[in-house]
């Protein structure tokens, strides 16, 4: 493969043809052990048939990251419709969509708006080189934040139409001129667990197997099979949140009842979209 970032479509496919390597050994810090490999593409599937609104995901995530009160990285939104006795209720679990972004841009709005999206070190994932930043996209699709680089402009918070980012009062910025300002929190797809070969915390936690995580590039993975079975990636209008925003989410919903279509919030309003990304039972 060619070195560097001038990676072509052909190269990616070539990498895809290489032998699969199993990682998931204790202490492994990178997902890709074999240098000849291309990176995975992580995807997250929520099976709305299975979600009972139990909030185990919500609380599991609070524990995993010790998230401060009033902030969440994973929430459940109940959706009610119909008039008694024909009323119905379903649940829409939400988290960062780890969007791919529109194809011409290749990054989601949060990365696009981050002035420091390119200021970090150069790293390699398999044969793919990439540069980290304050908010950046990894070759495997994870949208991550490096608090050492964040300048606290908070533009990413406004840029995300889903309102999943929050100012984290438990984290201070590291840049010398910004030490008094708070950092930013959001779902990381549990990069620290996934890089060690284990599923994200909320996926482990979900008692009803409503959360499935895996590699879209691996045709044998459960996510690939579900994507195929439920036509998830070709039918994003019905299987992702806010498809009109063209963020290309990589959180898909199995939704035979059409619950997503009933779930609405004012995502254009900054305060409302953030208020929506809270967990509350009435």
């Amino acid at each position, binding site marked *: 493969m060619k070195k560097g970032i001038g990676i072509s479509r052909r190269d990616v496919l070539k990498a895809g043809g*290489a032998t699969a390597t199993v990682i998931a050994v204790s202490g492994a810090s990178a997902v890709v052990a074999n240098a000849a490999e291309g990176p995975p593409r992580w995807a997250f599937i929520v099976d709305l048939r299975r979600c009972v609104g139990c909030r185990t995901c919500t609380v599991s995530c609070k524990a995993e990251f010790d998230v401060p009160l009033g902030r969440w990285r994973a929430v459940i939104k109940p959706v009610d419709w119909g008039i008694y006795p024909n009323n119905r209720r379903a649940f829409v679990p939400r988290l960062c969509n780890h969007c791919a972004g529109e194809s011409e841009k290749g990054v989601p709005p949060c990365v696009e708006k981050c002035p420091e999206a390119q200021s970090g070190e150069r790293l390699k994932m398999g044969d793919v080189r990439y540069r980290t930043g304050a908010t950046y996209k990894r070759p495997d699709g994870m949208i991550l934040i490096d608090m050492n680089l964040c300048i606290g402009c908070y533009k990413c918070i406004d840029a995300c139409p889903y309102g999943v980012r929050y100012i984290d009062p438990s984290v201070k910025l590291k840049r010398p001129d910004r030490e008094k300002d708070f950092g930013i929190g959001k779902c990381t797809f549990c990069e620290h667990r996934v890089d060690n070969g284990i599923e994200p915390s909320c996926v482990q936690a979900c008692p009803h197997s409503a959360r499935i995580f895996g590699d879209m590039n691996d045709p044998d993975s459960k996510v690939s099979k579900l994507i195929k079975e439920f036509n998830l990636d*070709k039918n994003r209008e019905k299987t992702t949140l806010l498809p009109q925003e063209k963020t290309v989410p990589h959180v898909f919903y199995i939704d035979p009842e059409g619950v997503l279509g009933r779930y609405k919030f004012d995502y254009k309003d900054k305060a409302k979209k953030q208020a929506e990304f809270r967990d509350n039972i009435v």
Partner: protein
Amino acid sequence: MIQLTRRNFMKFAAASGAVLATGEGMKSKALAGTVQTQTGRDFSPTTKKERQAIPTACWQCVARDSMIGFVEDGRLVKLEGHPKSIRGNGHICARGMAGINQVYDPDRILYPMKRTGARGEGKWKRITWDEAVTELTDRIKKLRDEGHPEKFIFHYGRMKASAAKLIGGLVEATGTGSIGNHTSLCEAGKWTAQELTWGGHFDNWDIDKTKFILNFGSNILETHTNHMPVAHRIMNAKVDRGVRMVTFDVRMSNTAAKSDEWIPIRQGTDMAVFLAMTNVVLNKGLYKGDGEEFLKYCKCTEKHDDTVENKVEALKKHYANYTPEWASKISGVPAAKIEQIATEYATTKPAVLIAYRGAITTYNGTDSERARMVLNSLTGNIDNPGGNCKAVGAGWASAKIPKSETKKAKDIFDGAPKGQPESYPFPTHHASHQVLPRIKASGPGTFELALWYCYTPAYANGDVQGNIDVLKDEKLLPFVVSVDPFYGDSTHYADMILPDATYLERYDWEDMVDPTQIGEYYIRQALVKPLGESRDFGDVMIEICNRLGIKTDYKTKEEYVQQSVDMTPGVKEAGGWEYMKKNGVWNDGKAKYYSYKKEVPAEAIKEAGVVYDEEAGVYWNPEKAHVTENKGYFRSKNAYKGYVATKMGDKLIAGFKPDKINKSGYMELWSQPLKDVGMNPLPEWIPAPEHANIAPDDLHLTTFKVVVQTHSRTANCKWLSEIYPQNQAWMNPKDAAARGIKDGDRIKVKSAIGEMEILAHVTENAQPGHINISHHKGHWAYGRYASGKKSPVGADDPDDANIFWKGFGTHPNWIIPNKGDRIAGYQRWNDTLVKVTKA
């Protein structure tokens, strides 16, 4: 290396995006990258280091799931389900996940304290453990020396497995039998009904093998005695195998919402529907086949050896008037729907019939459960794969617990106070909610010393004001000790508080029911040392007993647990304590069904003392039951303790072994013990007296539980209360409109004993004619997250500045009286009628 520029990076991203969007990347073999599920491992998000993993067991609710605790730098940071547990399959619930909040509750009591101000004033001084234990020991010793050990009342809220065996045993070893429990607040009526019918208590629904799930009044996907072990199986059965689930409930709980069908039912009328369903099964002949076969094991008339034809005839006669039309008028469920569901339940084999709080928290509660047992019997869904099974749990051995030669108890746990027109002939799990009212009725001198263990009498029982009045009265309760890790609504009225270890800081063997019918042996071990000076009360009781001269073979509860584990067959061979500490769980892999059919060897009835009782069809041993004057099996006190076997034709079978009640070894659909107290031996519908003259503007007040809270015990868990900071009263829009109430309005809810204010939640998920108010909330002394107030010993917490909620809800028990169902005395939580107005 080549510089990665923003432009190049974008180019790459665009390329990979294109591949994924077209799906072409998937044509080739797997790219690298795979994640494993359920590994029992966790890593720190900050240091990326692996966290130490220790198997243990939950205790956020009585389901007690096996789990893995993760520890980082000596601090407990995460809890996950134990992947090797056959009960949980790696799953715990949100409450379980938030167990960490219990350990690090900033309002926790970390050293023994003694009251300095007036009782309930909240003024305390720190004392040493030696002072505390000396005071308690001296008081127990004084009562023993005076010949009145029973003037020490020990009342627990939750105490199970090794804790029950050891702590309960050691309390009894001091000579008192005045021991109160909690079950009359939970499901006592259900248990008593099972003791009257199939003996023993606890039913397991074999979800993994069932083909139909019918549920009456159980919010099993949100909260249940065996919550997550059953709940995750239900969702698997539904989605993976297409098993249909139908839920009858007064409101649309999340369980009802996720069922294939929700059928609203008027509060307290589930029994009427059971009776009508049985009527349908009998009239349509749906009992034929499996039901007829099972009827051989049932007692349906006075004669245990009656023919199946006679049994069916007797039942048909009894059920003739319980028609779907009759039940429809009572329950509000359309008759055709009752007939349809009855037919579906009787013809989809095997099937489970779940019934819980909704069906039993009422005047007819115990009989409602008996009516369910009839329906299960007539459809052959008893103790069969995929049906309603006798529960199986671990059978631990116990290291020796010392016993008192004499034991005395106050007769105060089993009835209503004088003046209340109620009586409970079979309070087999006690009427503990009536203990405080009865102490008041008995007057001073009843008890000299009271100890609450894992119990909040002020909050947990009905009539909160009545409870507080007794708790504050130093004449009625001269000295009160509260053993609790947390400051709370009842420790507030204590004279001395002993800080207990939380469940994540202690050792136990555990035995909760296994949904696979195998029976899981599992343990709880300390993940961190008890915070501050807190101590497992098991250790404290050992010390007290030792000081009283009562010897034990162990100095700590951990030693007791270890000795017991090492003695237990199966576990012992697997490696005993060391094996369990490493693995946390063990099972023998054998599922247990049809236990009643098991043949008993003829030698068993040839043993000295064993006699045959013709009336009951039972071989029993009066000597073993300590029966001196044999008045026949049914009428000799505690005869069931001598039960040996049941004679069925020329066979000798294990039968449905009795427990607590002298029933035969048959499934007693027709109950001799009930007949003997003048009640109908077959299930009988008797309307609740309160509901006889229901006014048009009365609403049924029902209480419920929420998926992120457990009873009274989790409101100060910050991750749970931030999701559910306050409860609101669910009302249907029609009922709200009729009273000029809008969503979010403050309303007044008035019952016969009091009035409360709460916010209204106007929702289509509430049934007209009902108002539903959850438990859990409205604490007044239980910590900052629960009540808005720091405890008197509360410490600062980094999250204090982030508490965003101002409302803490209202506890419905202020306006619900303490009453009992007509057979077991089980608290009738849902029989209260209320008037609702805008505040």
